[in-house]
């Protein structure tokens, strides 16, 4: 059925701009990547780095004040921006679905969970009988371990974790090839967050859909992903396999900073470090590398042009000084 060699998702030089009171801002800047069937790609970056915008762009769900102005996005070989509004409605969810940050705000507060669940089948599988839909929904709820009695509940009557499980069940209702997960656990507590992550891993192992998993937390990303892309100020600054982020490797200075920011176990304490400075302001971009005001190894040449991704071992890094980064790391051992 699914071709295992052709990528599920191809993002090709995508650029997304949006308009705000501050003016025009480029939230996604010339980004390219592919996701293979069954692969989990993690995208990590600070708030405002454009990772959510990228998710919405893949879904062709950008708000009216934003647009994909350059590049191409293909899901299963279909350019989603070439579909008519009607075709797109049928295509989405069937092939690519999404789990949002908080199900509390994505589930309609005045409709029951069951109503919102059945709606999916009413739209995409109108031929299915009511009974068959009911069975299918119960199967899905079984998978995320929610009792079917909650179909009668309103969203606010459920806990955050339950709502997010339901959102996941809804996302995989039509067996899509790709599920976009935009910070699906950020609004949850540590314990529930961990449970949901395991849930996602377990279900993904059963259903084999591809995932684009977006988070600001590198811990989650490297826990769940097979490949990772690091974004800064709308650009990809580093890509590579998840292993690269678990074991010593050459990293972009920003990635290095992110890794250092994770609470680190040391003797009998966690220790934390940060990246000095402030996140970039997309509405007022600076020339050259966007990270240079916060970069410990910035030089004057960094302001000339934004660096492009170049191969470094098993990954790619967009830094003017890739060579010495790689060497420095070898020296570290």
């Amino acid at each position, binding site marked *: 059925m699914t071709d295992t060699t052709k990528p599920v998702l191809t993002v090709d030089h995508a650029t997304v701009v949006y308009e705000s009171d501050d003016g025009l801002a480029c939230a996604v800047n010339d980004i390219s990547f592919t996701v293979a069937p069954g692969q989990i790609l993690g995208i990590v970056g600070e708030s405002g780095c454009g990772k959510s915008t990228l998710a919405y762009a893949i*879904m062709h*769900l950008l708000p009216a004040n934003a647009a994909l102005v350059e590049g191409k996005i293909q899901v299963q070989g279909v350019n989603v921006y070439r579909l008519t*509004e009607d075709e797109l*409605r*049928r295509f*989405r*969810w*069937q092939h690519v*679905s*999404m789990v*949002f940050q*908080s199900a509390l*705000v*994505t*589930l*309609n*507060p*005045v*409709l029951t969970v069951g109503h*919102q669940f059945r*709606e*999916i089948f009413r*739209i*995409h599988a109108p031929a299915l009988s009511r009974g068959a839909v009911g069975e299918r929904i119960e199967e899905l709820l079984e998978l995320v371990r929610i009792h079917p009695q909650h179909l009668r509940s*309103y969203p*606010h*009557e459920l806990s955050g974790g339950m709502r997010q499980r339901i959102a996941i069940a*809804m996302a995989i209702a039509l067996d899509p090839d790709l599920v976009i997960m935009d910070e699906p656990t950020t609004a949850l507590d540590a314990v529930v967050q961990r449970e949901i992550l395991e849930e996602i891993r377990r279900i993904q192992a059963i259903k084999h859909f591809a995932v684009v998993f977006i988070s600001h937390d590198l811990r989650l990303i490297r826990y769940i992903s097979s490949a990772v892309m690091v974004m800064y100020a709308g650009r990809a600054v580093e890509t590579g396999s998840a292993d690269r982020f678990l074991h010593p490797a050459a990293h972009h200075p920003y990635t290095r900073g992110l890794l250092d920011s994770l609470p680190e176990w040391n003797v009998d304490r966690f220790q934390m470090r940060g990246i000095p400075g402030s996140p970039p302001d997309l509405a007022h971009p600076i020339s050259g590398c966007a990270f240079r005001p916060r970069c410990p190894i910035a030089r004057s040449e960094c302001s000339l042009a934004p660096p492009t991704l170049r191969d470094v071992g098993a990954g790619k890094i967009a830094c003017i000084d890739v060579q010495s980064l790689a060497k420095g790391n070898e020296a570290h051992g």
Partner: protein
Amino acid sequence: MRYILNRFGFLLISAWAAVSINFVLPRLMPGNPALLMVSRYAGELTPRALHAIKLQFGVTSAPLLVQYWHYLINLIHGRLGVSLTYYPVPVSRVIASSLPWTLGLAGTATAIAAIAGTWLGIFAAWRRNRWPDSILTTGTTFTGAIPHQWFGLLLLLGLGYGLHWFPVAHAYSTQMTPQWTLAFAENVVYHALLPAITIVVPGLGGWLLHMRNNMMQTIGDDYIVFARAKGVSPRGLMLQHAARNALLPSVTNFAMAIGFVVGGVLLVEVVFSYPGVGYQLFTAVQNEDYPLMQGLFLIISLSVLMVNFLVDLLYAWLDPRSRRVGVD
């Protein structure tokens, strides 16, 4: 259950407030207008009736609390006094004969204005910032500010006296007698058309703008984006997902809207000599018939309170979330 009791409690409190305002107003006013009235009618009324009016308006030496007590007792027994205009008909009878006309006219016209305005509001939000929206919003911004009485007079001038399309006064033709026949019903509807239009047109704008803005507010919510991602059609998005949520503030808005509606209906009845409570109130004011005026105010207030109570219950039923939190 607790909510219903709570709202019922509020209904009682506000009814008590209306009743008390009714008691206090004539006693609060400078120059005691009631005394003037009593002296004016002194020759025409029987001494007993005059005494009753004196009691009702506090032109007695009895202590205020005693007066209040008698006033409440009379109310509970439905004794609102005797109308001076229609002497010796009791106020309650005058109200009973006029209230149905007002309820019928105001009820239908308000329902039409609310439903049509809300639908147009949904439509305007759907076509937001395009020409249908612009026309509807600017148009109703103007109609919303039209004084009812003026609009009624203009309609009378043009469609009534000018073109003779519609009757110019009363609820039915004077040569007919009220009875349950189709012909009579037709006649009533025919007479109610102009007054109803006069109420609907200025009222439409408020509902439309309110619904439109609520819709716009709702359309920005994440669950609309989510529903769109699921494949819900634009139509389904508007009607199933956005409109229901946007409707809730419109329901709460009813309390504020109904005051405007009642005011408008009163003026329209006066313009069209429509025999409802508004027209009676106007007659009472002109004849300084204070007992009738007070009775009418009370009945209008209580009707509005009742409607609000029902709307509150409707809201609780519509919104599964409605909740309040506080320190115990």
